[in-house]
């Protein structure tokens, strides 16, 4: 089958390389999403990954969210100086920017840099030091054992991080209004309460779940298929960040069109 496809595309064609990457990725997913050999071990690994992916990223997410919220408010206040613009504009802009785009997309992209590169380098190192071969020799399914807990933990914990980011971003706007006198705090609070659309949170969480799946699985794929030595581990890590970012940005557009149409 693969040889027939090769003959259609030609061995060096870009289309063939893309096909090969996609087929490799989906093959990995098929092998990953099987029943774990021992549920007890799976859950232990799952919670370890929840800690590594989620709890260890909490500080970074918190700092970034507070500062992003503050910056959005100051920029809004700077741009909305026309007396015809309603009083709620700055607060509303900060809240909706955080909910719709900054928390789900920008935080996910930042997590690609932190979590994605870490997953790729961990699996890449395991590959080049023959630890993955050792698992296979023992009769353990390495994809299921190594990748499934990472993907499941990412899909589980990253939405919590994003919800925290939303709150802290909006709070960051409040801090900026109090500390910089950009706008009165009361006006900001009025703005963030004005015309709240709960569906925005649902939209953000749907995007987050998809992004979490992409960032963990694409990074795991690049790490797992590493071949060579330390140099290739670095390359895999870079590839994981680049490809995850591109795929997330693409799905951001697709999901926005589908969910906000």
């Amino acid at each position: 089958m693969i040889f027939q496809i090769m003959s259609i595309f030609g061995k060096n064609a870009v289309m063939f390389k893309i096909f090969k990457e996609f087929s490799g990725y989906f093959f990995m997913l098929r092998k990953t999403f099987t029943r774990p050999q021992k549920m007890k071990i799976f859950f232990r690994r799952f919670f370890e990954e929840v800690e590594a992916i989620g709890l260890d990223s909490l500080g970074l997410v918190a700092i970034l969210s507070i500062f992003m919220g503050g910056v959005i408010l100051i920029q809004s206040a700077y741009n909305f100086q026309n007396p015809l613009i309603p009083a709620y504009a700055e607060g509303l802009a900060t809240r909706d920017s955080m909910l719709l785009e900054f928390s789900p997309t920008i935080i996910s992209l930042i997590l690609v840099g932190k979590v994605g590169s870490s997953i790729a380098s961990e699996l890449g190192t395991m590959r080049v030091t023959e630890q993955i071969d050792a698992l296979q020799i023992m009769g353990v399914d390495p994809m299921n054992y190594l990748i499934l807990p990472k993907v499941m933990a990412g899909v589980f914990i990253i939405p919590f991080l994003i919800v925290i980011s939303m709150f802290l971003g909006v709070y960051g706007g409040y801090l900026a209004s109090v500390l910089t006198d950009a706008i009165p705090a009361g006006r900001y609070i009025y703005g963030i309460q004005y015309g709240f659309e709960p569906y925005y949170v649902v939209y953000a969480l749907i995007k987050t779940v998809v992004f979490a799946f992409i960032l963990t699985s694409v990074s795991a794929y690049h790490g797992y298929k590493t071949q060579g030595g330390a140099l290739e581990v670095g390359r895999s890590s870079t590839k994981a960040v680049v490809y995850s970012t591109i795929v997330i940005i693409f799905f951001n557009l697709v999901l926005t069109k589908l969910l906000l149409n």
Partner: protein
Amino acid sequence: MIEIGNISKSFGERQVLSEVSMYLETGKVNMVIGQSGAGKSVFLKCLVGLTKTDAGEIIYDKRNFTEMNYLQKKDLRKEIGMLFQGGALFDSLTVEQNVIFPLEMFTNMSKAERIERANFCLKRVNLTNANKLYPAEISGGMKKRVAIARAIAMNPKYLFCDEPNSGLDPQTSIVIDNLIKEITLEYNITTVVISHDMNSVMEISDNIYFIFSGQKWWEGNREDLLRTDNKELCDFVYASSFMKEFKKSQNK
């Protein structure tokens, strides 16, 4: 006992193994020797199924490994212990956890039984007081010993060792060699050792197989090796000037 019948493997145009046949006996240390790039590691990977052969068959005690499906291979692998060149210990686990890992994965032993078994295996390889250390905190020789302890934890029927002495000093190499030999006899295991260390060959081998350019070029035992006049094998065994002089003096 492992029977290997005419296995071949190529990567693209490059033929790495060509119709290699062997009969690897139980309770013996079967040593596969050869130059770097001769195809030894590919041969070992073919034996354990990490690399798929192009042709030929591998039979583990009347069970044809090459005809097995994924799940059957996975089951058979539970009878295999493997010692990798670099140890391949799991970095995130302690020495004790590394040895416990296969027990936890494949047995229904209680925690206390697993710890007892791990301690027994670690004691067997003369490694005590290192249970709580991580692989990064122990020496190369200790890593090899932990890897052996992990390999024997499940009472394997087959033990594969990929250059067990690489990176070790001569004294530690002999300790590791003797350990492999003792374990082979003690548990009546079919042991396959890939090596190019002639000290190991002379120390522990029962059967020797010389691979040259992807082919099984020669087979015999230690005595045969000293008497052979096979040119390629002599070039390999007596590579250094000192050994060449030794060979000349032997011939006189």
